[in-house]
């Protein structure tokens, strides 16, 4: 049952198409994330849902009521701004209670609700401080509490964590997720950080240049990218040229690979194969099971649990490979040495030249 519906929303700023034909059904209580690089139209879409930006075309429906002609204040949504946008002249308590005061709720009720929200967002004891007396993370919590104060039907968050440092970010990520889960609020979350998107959401919408590339669960997005663009954007991946050859196999980089492909791929040449760095294994030439591709180790970087090495393939492409530190140390490779590399079975993602996914093998 769709609770919040976007139907063909579009917005242009002069020659720039910020959002193009965005349609999406969001269920009640669902956590949906808009993910995409900076400038792809996420904020614009979110602002159209909130009512700050008037769409050039399309509709917004909430609970079977068309709301796009309504001004923001009549939509009953909460919005957390990237910059927090706290009222600098008001204390934390006054910030959180602002909407309640506008609605002329009894003083007693406001005080109680503010205290409740402060408890919920771990802001106890900060009530009488001013925003400039708070840390970034605390300001973020105030912004969240303020947006929740009126029990919004939908919570909209525009990159709420982008201004914070990594540690606080991870902490607040979990807090926000558990909070909206507990309150069962339908949430649309905007971020350009894929880790954030994959870890928090029920569903992720991958956007690029105003379009939806793919809508799906984090797992679907990661393992079954709909297009090579999504595969490129989510996680790190290597893209290699390939073509289908008789016997339902494909040649990667002009080297025959032991990859069985469905027969219908023949004639779709050229193809592209995407492989994630963790799905490639390395060995010394002549060792290991079955056939392998060859290449040279160009460089490597120690990342902690893993080592990321760069291989120049015999076809001249550069390939990122992640090995566990243990595996890496066992291999004892030196820069410039020849290596053999293999694609783990079932982990190659095949795409047509226009980017549409053709399956895994």
């Amino acid at each position: 049952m769709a609770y919040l519906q976007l139907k063909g929303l579009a917005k242009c700023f002069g020659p720039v198409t910020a959002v193009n034909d965005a349609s999406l059904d969001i269920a009640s209580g669902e956590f949906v994330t808009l993910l995409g690089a900076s400038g792809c139209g996420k904020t614009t879409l979110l602002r159209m849902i909130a009512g700050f930006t008037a769409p050039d075309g399309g509709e917004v429906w909430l609970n079977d009521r068309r709301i796009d002609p309504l001004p923001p204040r009549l939509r009953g949504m909460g919005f957390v701004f990237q910059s927090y946008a706290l009222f600098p002249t008001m204390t934390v308590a006054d910030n959180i209670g602002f909407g309640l005061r506008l609605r002329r709720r009894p003083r007693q009720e406001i005080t109680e609700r503010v205290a409740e929200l402060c408890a919920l967002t771990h802001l106890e004891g900060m009530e009488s401080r001013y925003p400039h007396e708070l840390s970034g993370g605390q300001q973020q919590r105030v912004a969240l509490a303020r947006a929740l104060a009126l029990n919004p039907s939908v919570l909209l968050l525009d990159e709420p964590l982008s201004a914070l440092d990594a540690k606080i970010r991870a902490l607040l990520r979990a807090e926000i997720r558990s909070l909206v889960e507990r309150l069962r609020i339908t949430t649309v979350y905007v971020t350009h950080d894929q880790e954030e998107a994959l870890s928090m959401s029920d569903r992720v919408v991958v956007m690029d240049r105003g379009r939806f590339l793919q809508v799906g669960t984090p797992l679907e997005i990661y393992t079954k990218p709909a297009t090579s663009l999504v595969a490129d954007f989510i996680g790190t991946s290597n893209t290699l040229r390939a073509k289908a050859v008789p016997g339902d196999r494909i040649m990667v980089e002009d080297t025959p690979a032991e990859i069985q492909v469905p027969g219908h791929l023949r004639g779709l040449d050229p193809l592209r194969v995407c492989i994630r760095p963790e799905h490639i294994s390395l060995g010394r030439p002549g060792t290991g099971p079955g056939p392998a591709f060859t290449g040279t180790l160009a460089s490597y970087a120690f990342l902690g649990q893993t080592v990321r090495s760069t291989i120049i393939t015999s076809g001249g492409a550069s390939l990122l490979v992640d090995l566990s530190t243990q595996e890496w140390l066992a291999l004892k490779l030196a820069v410039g040495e020849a290596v053999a590399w293999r694609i783990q079975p079932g982990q190659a993602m095949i795409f047509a030249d226009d980017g549409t996914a053709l399956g895994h093998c």
Partner: protein
Amino acid sequence: MSRASAYAVSLGTAVLLMLFVIMPLGAVLIESVRLRGPLTPREMRTAVLAALERLEPEPRRTLLARWGDEVTPAQRMEATAATLEAMNLRVLWDRKAPFDQQIAAAEAAVTGLTENQRAAFTAEFPVQVAVLHKRIALAFRVRDRLSPAEFDTLRSGTRSGFGLTHYREFLGDPRLRRAGLHSLFVATTASLISMVLAYALAFAVNRRGTRVPSLVRFTVLTPLVSPPIIMALAGILLFGRQGLITRGLLQERLGLIDADVTNLYGVSGVIVAMVLSFLPHAFIILDDVLARHDGRVEEAAASQGATAWQIFWRVTLPLTRPGVIRAALVVFILSMTDFGNPLVIGRGYSVLAGVVYDEIIGYQNSSLAAALCVWLILPTLTAYFLFERSERRKRFATGAATGGPPELPLSAMARLGLGTAAAAVCATIVLFYGVIVLGSFTRVWGVDFTPTLEHYRWQGAEAYSGVGAAQRLPLIWSSVKIAGMAALAGGIFSVMIAYLVERVRPTGRNVLGFIALLPGVVPGVIFGVGYLVAFNNPLGIRELALTGTAAILVLNILFANIFVGVLAGRATLQRLDPAVDEAAEILGATLGQKFFLVTVPMIRHVLVLATLYIFVHGLVTLSAVIFLVSPDHNLASVGIFLNADTGRYGLAASMSVAILVIVTAVMGLIWLAERHGPAWARVRLAGG
């Protein structure tokens, strides 16, 4: 719906700005090409013939015949002469002779006409009778067949049309031409002197040329917020015929001069008063330029072996030249349009702005005055805009500016020179203010130096306004009341315009912002003349007239000064996060709640600054309001000017001191507001 209210508020603001900024300025232009004057005989005849045409032939003939019989012999003679002239015949008798002689001569002339001429004469004569003697009767006779304008022209025999006559008058009339040349001369001299002095002072303040930079700044900037013509008044008290220095010291003590002959009246006094009055305007610009200037450039030059002298002429001066030109232009415009100082201390040295004043106050010739206003500012404003445009194109880049003056030591000579200049200017200013205070406590300056408080009693018509009203207010309080009303309304209005332009962003917001800034560029005298001609008889409806009311003063002061609040408000809002406004909106705030509950608290110091600024300027402004005051609603600044102009120096001085005291108190408040403004939104009060 907040969109509808945003639309309504934007529209309302636009209408107010159109009415009270654009309309007065447009009215000056229209007034300057409006012609009023008697019709020429030929035009008169055409109008009469046209009116006669409106009658049926039969009534027309009887009417003309009756009029021909009605006229007196003298009138008949006049008509005969006019008829002969209309027929291009010479009138051969002496038109200055006694009437009976002329009448006889006229009859003789008619008898002497040829056959053909006589026929033409008989046809033309009744027409001329009508033109000369029956025009008004005719007008009323055919009134219902004429348009109101045609009726008016025929009845009054005057024309109201449009043309460039008044502009040509300026070029043709030696009196006006001389005044124009005088204006050019004093404005050029004053702006050159101010520019050099202001540069020296700004240099001294920013480059450790003086040990007390903030004291110099404070002293030099004081005249910015002082009552009008205070420098001319002080000049008279010091250097006039009864001057403390000219008569008291040089004549009576030292016997060097005769103060009745050698004094500051005239062109030199005008220039001194203007320089001291407008020096702060130049100083504030150059102080800003030199304070921002990155001293590393000079240090780089020094490291290449340039001497201090070379560094100044080759590096510092070229880099600060835009500021120098801007300062000179600003003083030039201010001096061109100043009439207070020249009228008080000029004594017969007429300048163009003074003529504008005379034409309006003395002769009610607002059309000529308007044309002169345009002559007054057109060249300078053009120059100013051209300059600003060329400046925007070329901007000096000296690399990443780290700020701060150069740390190069100033030579002892330079320090001595700059220090002396700063001390001399400051001492002069202090002396001028001191003598005003002294004058306000002196019975009769130059004659009877007994200390007295009598000038502060503010008795007599010169010190009062509110004729006939139950309470008669001294001018000071009338000023406080009117400036206060303008300030309270204008402060919030200017912040609202800033909010509209920066946050509500209606279509045409840039035009809105521009119109609000216009009064900051247009000299006060023009804004005053504009209000006078626009609201004397707006749209021809007498009931809408604002002249003679207190409202016109409030409105004029308000709209002339809102630009400061608009500028400061916009600058502050641009630095604040626009999402704050949206945060309030989505929490349910209406347009009014967003403005009053969220925006105004955030920029409340701008509101305070804007309000106090309008108040202070309302107290000290002269050039605009002098055309708008009336016996019932007068202002202290006008009182100071008129009293100084008529030699009541004590009264003028006491009112000046009173204004100074109020202004000082208010500036103290501004200072407090700035000091205690929250760190996230601090704005410095820009000059001007």
